[in-house]
């Protein structure tokens, strides 16, 4: 079958969010004739409904195209799309490990932003050849020369002669394709060596079962090969091998060194396949597994409960399937007095949390109650034990705590000087400590801060965008733990402690937070037949209170001409409203309230 390795290019496109990565991917697919223009659907690689709606890439996707280069030769281009949001750096890292080079897309008017840098560093970490492309040159505000200089100054890669394109208008796409062929190295694996392939993703398909995405480093894999997953030790027979068409899996005879494709096998248990694992030939194994991925630790935790407690098992199955292609999702069973049986789930960030809950609801048709997200605290007990606290309800009594530590991040914020004051103010409010400030050019500044993670997980990103009118970008990485004065804020509704609403807060902010939580709950919980006191407490002491006044009149007066069915419909509607509620004691609480109470920075 010979596709020789020197005619293969495996690459990713990396960019800050909104710089046009997915549009460029579309143009490449179109130009290489994989799909006709008529078949093109915008952003072909974002094939989750959710991705198209939000205009972001969440999951990495791969596609194979064939390009007839100017040297007259045909090249196989394997494009592996990557997400752009800071929450999904892990996904980017996985994709990059399957590539030999990366195309860096930079917006011609926005220039370099926080995640441009973050992604470039990731690519360089993987020893990838990176070349820049300046996109959106058709915009009136485009300033490609300045941006080219910025790339050279800040990143230190040559950008003078880089392709200047408009992916939207299809300008300069040929130049990009030529650069891919000429600048990105061909893979250098050896097909005659024992099989060694990296699992960079996996999805569950109800017909094919688990579909494993692989990059073959050495050797050959074909139908019937008995493979071994080196980390889990599982041994399975390969049922099908193939490559990625646009939105389709296309079977082929074999995948050899340097190629990207998929395999399906007689995999019984979803846990047998682990992203980052190495696949080898059971009869003729390679000596050493690939380094795999650094395990990422979730940064944000929250409780996820089925609205209908009978759906607990369905939720468990759904989480298991989602985890298959999202190893960064972790979960374990927990019980809440208020919400019953559910799971404490860990996420890379708030967007990740949002995406997962939405996928659970849409793809698995589940109705969920989500509790307020929190970070992982370290609790040093007086007896010397250290607890990693993911659920505030489990915080030991104050008398048993020696001290606590909270996670902090190193944050980089790129901002226009015009909004510098506002953003510095925001960081100060969030207990940030400035560690650096660099002028990228006269009007743009790179701010560096250390910030407690729990100050940025709820709404920092939104606050940043609104205070800078969108002219700020943000990236962060966990830097470690620091000792902090923290307390648990409890909420009592109708004098009953609601464990699902407890959260950990910086001591000096407790009063203010408690007050605002009560105010917010007052808006979130509809009035009921009796007065409902809302209280915030720290260590048993009430620090804030509000009352939801009972409604006093709700009368349906008209009863006309014996039209009973109309009356019935009105009562049914009233009753239907209850289904969106969760009963805590005698109080009906809307399911959304558990999450919404923490969005305090909205107005």
């Amino acid at each position: 079958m010979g596709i020789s390795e020197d005619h293969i290019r495996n690459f990713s496109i990396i960019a800050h969010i909104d710089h046009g990565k997915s549009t460029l991917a579309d143009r490449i697919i179109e130009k290489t004739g994989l799909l006709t223009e008529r078949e093109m659907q915008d952003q072909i690689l974002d094939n989750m409904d959710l991705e198209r709606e939000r205009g972001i890439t969440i999951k990495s996707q791969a596609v194979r195209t064939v390009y007839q280069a100017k040297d007259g030769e045909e090249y196989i281009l394997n494009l592996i799309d990557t997400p752009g949001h800071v929450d999904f750096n892990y996904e980017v890292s996985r994709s990059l490990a399957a590539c030999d080079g990366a195309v860096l897309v930079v917006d011609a008017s926005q220039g370099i932003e926080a995640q441009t840098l973050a992604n470039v560093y990731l690519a360089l970490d993987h020893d990838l050849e990176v070349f820049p492309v300046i996109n959106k040159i058709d915009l009136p505000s485009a300033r490609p020369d300045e941006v080219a200089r910025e790339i050279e100054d800040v990143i230190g890669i040559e950008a003078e002669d880089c392709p200047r394109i408009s992916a939207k208008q299809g300008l300069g796409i040929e130049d990009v394709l030529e650069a891919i062929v000429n600048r990105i190295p061909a893979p250098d694996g050896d097909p005659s060596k024992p099989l060694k392939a990296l699992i960079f993703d996996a999805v569950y398909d109800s017909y094919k079962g688990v579909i494993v995405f692989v990059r073959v480093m050495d050797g050959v894999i074909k139908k019937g090969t008995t493979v071994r997953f080196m980390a889990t030790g599982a041994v399975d027979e390969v049922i099908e091998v193939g490559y990625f068409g646009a939105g389709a899996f296309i079977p082929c005879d074999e995948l050899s060194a340097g190629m990207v494709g998929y395999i399906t096998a007689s995999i019984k248990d979803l846990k047998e396949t682990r992203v980052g694992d190495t696949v080898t030939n059971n009869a003729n194994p390679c000596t050493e597994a690939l380094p795999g991925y650094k395990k990422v630790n979730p940064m944000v935790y929250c409780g996820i409960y089925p609205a209908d407690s009978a759906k607990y098992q369905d939720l468990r199955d759904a989480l298991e399937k989602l985890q298959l292609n999202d190893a960064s999702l972790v979960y374990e069973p927990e019980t809440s007095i208020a919400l019953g049986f559910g799971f404490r789930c860990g996420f890379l960030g708030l967007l990740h949390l949002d995406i997962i809950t939405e996928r659970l609801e849409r793809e698995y048709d589940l109705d969920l109650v989500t509790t307020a997200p929190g970070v992982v605290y370290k609790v040093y007990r007086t007896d010397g034990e250290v607890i990693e606290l993911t659920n505030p309800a489990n915080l030991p009594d104050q008398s048993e705590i020696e001290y606590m530590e909270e996670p902090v991040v190193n944050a980089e914020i790129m901002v226009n000087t015009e909004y510098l004051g506002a953003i510095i103010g925001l960081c100060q409010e969030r207990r940030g400590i400035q560690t650096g400030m660099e002028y990228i050019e006269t009007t743009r500044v790179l701010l560096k801060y250390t910030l407690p993670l729990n100050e940025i997980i709820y709404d920092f990103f939104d606050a940043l965008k609104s205070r800078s009118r969108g002219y700020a970008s943000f990236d962060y990485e966990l830097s470690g733990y620091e000792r902090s004065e923290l307390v648990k804020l409890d909420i009592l509704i109708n004098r009953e402690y609601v464990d699902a609403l407890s959260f950990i807060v910086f001591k000096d902010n407790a009063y203010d937070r408690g007050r605002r939580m009560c105010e917010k709950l007052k808006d979130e919980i509809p009035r009921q037949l009796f007065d409902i006191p809302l209280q915030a407490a720290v260590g048993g002491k009430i620090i804030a209170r509000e009352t939801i006044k009972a409604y006093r009149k709700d009368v349906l007066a008209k009863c006309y001409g014996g039209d009973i069915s109309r009356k019935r419909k009105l009562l049914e509607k009233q009753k239907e409203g209850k289904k969106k509620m969760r009963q805590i004691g005698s109080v009906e609480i809307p399911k959304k309230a558990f999450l919404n109470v923490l969005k305090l920075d909205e107005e």
Partner: protein
Amino acid sequence: MKNKFKPLSVYLHIPFCRKKCNYCDFLSAPADDETIRAYADALSVEIAAKGEEIGEGYFVKTIFIGGGTPNILPAHSIGGLLDNIRSSFNVDASAEITMEMNPGIYDFGDNGKGRDELALLKAKGINRLSIGLQTNLDDKLKTLGRIHDHKAFETMYAQAEKAGFENINIDMISSLPGQTFEEFKEDLKRTVSFGSKHISAYSLIIEEETAFGRMKRDELDLPDEEEEYRIYCYTREFLEQNGYKRYEISNYAREGYECRHNITYWKSGEYLGLGLGSSGLLNEIRYTVTEDLKAYIANPVNNYRECTDLTEKDRMEEYMFLGLRMTEGISLKHFEECFGISAWEIYEKPLNTYISEGFLEKEGDRLRLTEAGLDVSNEILSHFLLDIV
């Protein structure tokens, strides 16, 4: 012998008015004389056909001619319809026969047409009138889009009394745009001063498909919730002080003058709905006649929009959410006789909860909403809808 005939209430719908009021979402609209005549003819056909079909087994205890504005139809037409009912059904000699009327259609002065019309209606057996007053204030009548002023109501009311109608209901609406509590007190006092036997007092509800519903909320300038609650409480207190007993959420009557027709609905009794868009309940089937006027005129017999066989569950639910609208509540024993199972068994949770919270009370065999329960009856009654088991 006594059980040979089942009691029946008959509702006759007259879907016409001079002009649609701003708050009204009933099935009613202006129409030309020819259409109105054709409709009356169609109604006669329906009456005769229904009489043929079911008349044998029933004894008509109440008749209610509602609208719209039924007095758009000339009295002789109304009389003709009543004659038709009498020739097709067994009508109790002491049946309550109500007709709704509105001022502004014709002159009710001593020399006007109204006087003769009333006399004729009386002669044809109408023995109860329900007159739409809504409010005593001219500017508010205008806001509501009524076609008459207060004077027209006064004249009509006086003429009705003169014609010998002693059982009259006045319809009133409160919580009107721009209304204050003080203003309402005066309004209610004037309503009571007519000395009618029955008063229906509703709070204005803004329905979507009305002129009010299409206006912006702040444009409407409705009394706020506190004000509305004061108005609502005052209505109850003042009417009770003046000898009107509240016997249903929005209905007040002097002793012995409760509307027997409406009580049929609340007690899940059988009733026959005749005319456009009317509803009926016969043999555990609930139905609604078509709302398409042309279709009805062309084919007035058994032309249904909806027809539902009530299940046991439906009937239990209705027994409760209708029965509890009455201040006398329901008889637990009767519930058990009807369904062969105790209400406690079906409604354990809402009964226990609401009795303990003071929204329901049990006295001997009676179960009823307390005053606090009546105030929030919607919420309470919605809990008497059963989940599908």
